[in-house]
Each structure stands twice: as structure tokens, then as C-alpha cells.
């Protein structure tokens, strides 16, 4: 109920954000997790269109907050934020990123789309290409897909590991646990070095994926985004979902948590992601740099000089 009231008020407070977080010791069951955001009050359903319109409205209202937070992050040039997105095909990560970042200065942002690894990538350890793309001080780095693909895709397609010249060995459980450990350690290193890590899983149902694939096929402007390979992957839906569940539950410590974002309704995932990103930046305590006494004196002199110009 608090969700509904808060949504109506325009406040997406900490309790709501907490509800989306995967906490240590409280594993998530993706098949039981609602891919739709339920903001209905007892007995009164909010129509889909209303929900989406309201979400868009709120996103628009909050843009200024995110833009300001990002300005401060950029100006203080000390912390960075890595935001990574994962999801099944059709989860529409592109749109989520675009809507989340509209109004934010693109200079402050470094976004990367990771698809099939190149031959060069395969010649290196599984974290290499991602570590090269990490955001600099003062920037927001965005990963559309990430190193998490390295514990999802090869689990369902073991031949991918052969391409990486890696062998699972006799105890696959241990192999994957070691990879989760590597990832946790990597993220701990990032956080310790002032790079906050935010992880978003955009959650849609199998049927929603079907509907979105159809939408793309029907729309000549979107058709190029659909590939028959997507259909093949769909056959392994359950395996992928399980791989996601295992990975998410093994890699969601307090310092670098996963958030499961309901992603079936337009504007909702970007609204939630934008909120969480804004809160995260503000929690860093970044601000415009203070001007020192010396600099202030210099600026006074500069001001005078300018004003005296003819």
C-alpha cells in the first residue's frame, strides 16, 4: 500500500528502493518475482496506461535532480558510478538507458554495449574487456550487458568456454562459484577505489518477450533489432532464468547490490533506475568544489580586471 500512496505522491523513497534490492541471505526467486510493478491500492486497480503516464511524468519531474547530482559528481571529479544492466532479450535495455539518461549531460557519461566477444577479447581473461571500459573519476559508466554475461551465456552454451580456452573441469559447481567469487572480488576492488557499483536486472516474463519480439517484427523501424537467433535463445528461457537467479543470488553483497526492476511497463524501469542512481550519487556526498581563500582572492582580482576593461 505504501507503494501506491508513494507513487501517487511522487515519492519513490528508500523503502521502495529497498524492496527492489536483493539482500544477502534473502535469495530472490525470479519465476515468482513480479515483472510488473504493482501499485494498485486494495480493490482499486490503476490502469496500465495511467501507470505508464504517471511513471513518465515522475521521470520527467526527477530529471532535474539526476542532472544536478551528476553535475556535482562531475565537478568533484573524485568518485565514479558504474551502472550495469542485464536482462533477457526483449527486456529493452537500450530504451531504459536512453530514458534514464535523457537530460543528463552526455559528457559526464560513458556508455558501452557489450555483445559477442571479439577474437581479441577471447584472448584475454573474462574480465579484461570490461575493465578497460570502466568510468573515470567524476563519470557515470553504463554497461549494456556486462561481465555477468560470462556467468550466464556460457552456462547455457558450454562451447563458449572452449572459445575462451577455458575448461570447466570435473566440478562445474566449483568452477561457477569461483567465477562468482572473482566477480565479487572485482566489485569490491572497484568500490574500495571510489567506483560505486549498481546492478539492474530488467525483469520481463516469457510471454512479454514473445509480445515484444512480435512488435519488432511488425514494425519496419524496429525490425532490424530482431534476429532469428533470439528465437533460438528463447527455447532455453528456463535455463537462462535459472542461470540469472543463481548468479544474482551469489553476487549481491551490500556494497554492490542487485536490484530486480519490473520491466514490463513502459517508463517504470527507467524511473526506478534513475531514482536509485540519483540516491546513490547523493549518498556519495559529492558537491561543487569549494574555492580556496587563495583562489577567491585571485577571482576577486580577475573580476576587477574584467570590470575595468573598456
Amino acid at each position, binding site marked *: 500500500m505504501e507503494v501506491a500512496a508513494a507513487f501517487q505522491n511522487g515519492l519513490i523513497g528508500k523503502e521502495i528502493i529497498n524492496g527492489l534490492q536483493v539482500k544477502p541471505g534473502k535469495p530472490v526467486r525470479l519465476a515468482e518475482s513480479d515483472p510488473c510493478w504493482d501499485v494498485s491500492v486494495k480493490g482499486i486497480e490503476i490502469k496500465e496506461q495511467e501507470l505508464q503516464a504517471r511513471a513518465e511524468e515522475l521521470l520527467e519531474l526527477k530529471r532535474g535532480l539526476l542532472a544536478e547530482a551528476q*553535475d556535482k559528481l562531475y*565537478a568533484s571529479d573524485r568518485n565514479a558510478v558504474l551502472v550495469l544492466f542485464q536482462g533477457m532479450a526483449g527486456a529493452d535495455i*537500450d530504451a531504459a*538507458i*536512453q530514458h534514464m*539518461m*535523457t*537530460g*543528463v*549531460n*552526455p*559528457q559526464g*557519461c*560513458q*556508455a*558501452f*554495449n557489450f555483445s559477442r566477444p571479439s577474437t581479441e577479447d577471447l584472448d584475454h581473461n573474462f574480465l579484461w574487456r570490461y575493465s578497460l571500459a570502466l568510468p573515470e573519476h567524476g563519470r557515470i559508466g*553504463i554497461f*549494456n550487458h556486462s561481465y555477468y554475461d560470462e556467468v550466464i551465456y556460457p552456462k547455457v552454451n558450454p562451447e563458449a568456454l572452449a572459445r575462451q580456452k577455458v575448461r570447466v573441469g570435473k566440478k562445474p559447481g566449483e568452477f561457477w562459484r569461483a567465477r562468482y567469487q572473482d566477480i565479487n572480488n572485482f566489485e569490491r576492488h572497484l568500490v574500495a577505489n571510489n567506483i560505486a557499483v549498481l546492478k539492474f536486472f530488467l525483469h520481463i516474463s516469457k*510471454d512479454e518477450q*514473445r509480445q515484444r*519480439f*512480435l512488435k519488432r*517484427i*511488425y514494425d*519496419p*523501424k524496429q*525490425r*532490424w533489432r*530482431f534476429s*532469428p537467433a533470439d*528465437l533460438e535463445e528463447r527455447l532455453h528461457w528456463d535455463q537462462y532464468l535459472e542461470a540469472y537467479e543463481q548468479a544474482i543470488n551469489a553476487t549481491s553483497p551490500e556494497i554492490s547490490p542487485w536490484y530486480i526492476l519490473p520491466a514490463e511497463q513502459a517508463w517504470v524501469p527507467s524511473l526506478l533506475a534513475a531514482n536509485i542512481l540519483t540516491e546513490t550519487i547523493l549518498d556519495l556526498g559529492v558537491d*561543487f*568544489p569549494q*574555492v580556496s581563500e587563495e583562489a577567491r582572492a*585571485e*577571482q576577486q582580482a*580577475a*573580476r576587477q*580586471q*574584467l*570590470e575595468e*576593461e573598456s
Partner: protein
Amino acid sequence: MAKKAAKDSDLLELFQVQPGSQVDLSQHDPGWIGSGELEELGQEELKERAVEILEENRLRLAEAQEKLLAQNSYAVLVILQAMDAAGKDGIIKHVMSAFNPQNCPVTSFKVPTPQELDHDFIWRNYKALPERGRIGIFNRSYYEEVLVVKVHPEFLEGQRLPPGKRAGKFWKKRYRSINNVERHLTINGTRVVKFFLHISKGEQKKRFLKRLEEPEKNWKFSTQDLVERGYWDEYMAAYETMLSATSTRWAPWYIIPADHKWVARAIVSSILTSTILELGVDYPALSEEELEVMEAARLQLEQEG
């Protein structure tokens, strides 16, 4: 739509530096606000109208960018050069903000690092060129090497260049290198679009004072900015030579009147949109085979439901 397109090409012509021409910046009004109805408007209304144009362009630009990405053959490189406080940041923020940041990487080039100085003057920029389907934005660029370095030739000492004179022919060779690189890029699918944001000396003064007055902007101000202002005339001369020497058929310069921020933003977005559309980008057509595969996929998905 035809009327809109006609207007855009007018702007292109109005602000483009004709290849082979000699630029005299005193003939270009940094306070230009258009003709006719626009001249009658007060500050507020002018801003409103410019914002309206920017908004109209935003949608066209977003669609042009989608097509560029879908076709995945061409890349677009946008280069922004200007004096301090001319508004490069604002252009990037307002003209490019509707894009997916994945598809418009922005690179700001500052003072070269020792590692960068170990290479030729275009190396660090070349590494940052955009991929096919994307719009890369250079906030400053290799043009600094014929601007700030021309005004302060002592910077050349740090570059450890082979021995030789550093005047006259030296600069001509640099312009030629630049033109050749841009030609290579154009032939190979990267369209290069160059904007010089032209503000007046008086407008720069106003904006510097504003930075000094507003607490959230204080940190942006550096006394070095004032020192460079002292070289204004030298910079204008360097800009004139550069614009004349490097505005080519394949990669022209546009001199954008930048005293009115929103006007500059509206003009840049119009020219950028036209440039992309001129490439003739479109969503890829599917072959017979691909259509059949699509149809089979469609049937399969419909049946599941």
C-alpha cells in the same frame, strides 16, 4: 516538411565556410538572431522560439540517429571548437541529450599527457573516433594544434618534433595533414562536421563575470582563462587562418553565432540533422530470404500465444 528542409539548407549555406574562401571574422556577427520576425522578439521570446526549434529538431535528430545506427555504415564526427565560455558544454548537453549515450560518445581533449606527446599530434584523437552507426563528439580536437599552439608556439618544444623551422610552411603542413586525414575518413564512411562557436569579446566578458558571481560556477573559472583572453586578437587571427585553410568540400566548417546560447543550439541541431539525413541513411531493407525467416519467426511466436 519541404519547407522545413528548405530552411535547413539555408542555414547550411549561411554559416558554411565556402572552401577556398578567406574568412574575415569581423564580417560574421556573433549576435546574429535571424531575420524578419525574430529580430522583433525580445530576449525571452527569442529564447522560447529557439527552444521550440530545438525541440522540433530533437525528434528529427533522434530519428536520423536511429537510422544511422540501423544502417550501421556511416559514422559522424562532430568537432566543436571555440573560445572559453562560448558554450561548447551547453551545445553537447542540449543538442545531444535526447540520444542514447551508447550511440554518441563524447571525448573532451585537454592538455596532452606525456604519453600522448610521444605520438604525432593526431594520434590521441584518432583513437577516439566513433564506430560505424555512431555520432562521436570531440569537445576540442586536433585543431588545438593550430590554435592554442599557434598562439603559444613555445608549446611545440614539448612535442619533441624533428628539427626544422616552425613558421609559415610548418603550419601549412599541419593544415594539409588535417585535410588529408579528414578526406580519408570521409571516403571511408566517417562524415566530419565542424562547428566554430563564435562569441564576441564582450559576451565572453559577461559570461566570465557570471561564473565569478555564481557560487556553483566558481569552480569552473580559472585565472588562466583571463590570461588567454589577453591573446584574443591572436586567437581570432589563428581561427581565421584555420577556417580558411581547413574548410574543405568534404569537411566544411560552420561559423555559428554564439552570443545567444539558444540560437546557437538551434542552429547546430539543424545543421547536424541535415548532415545526417544527407547521408541517405535508412532502416535496412530485408532480402527475400530474410523476409521468409522473419515470417516463419512471426508464425512461430503467434502460435505460442
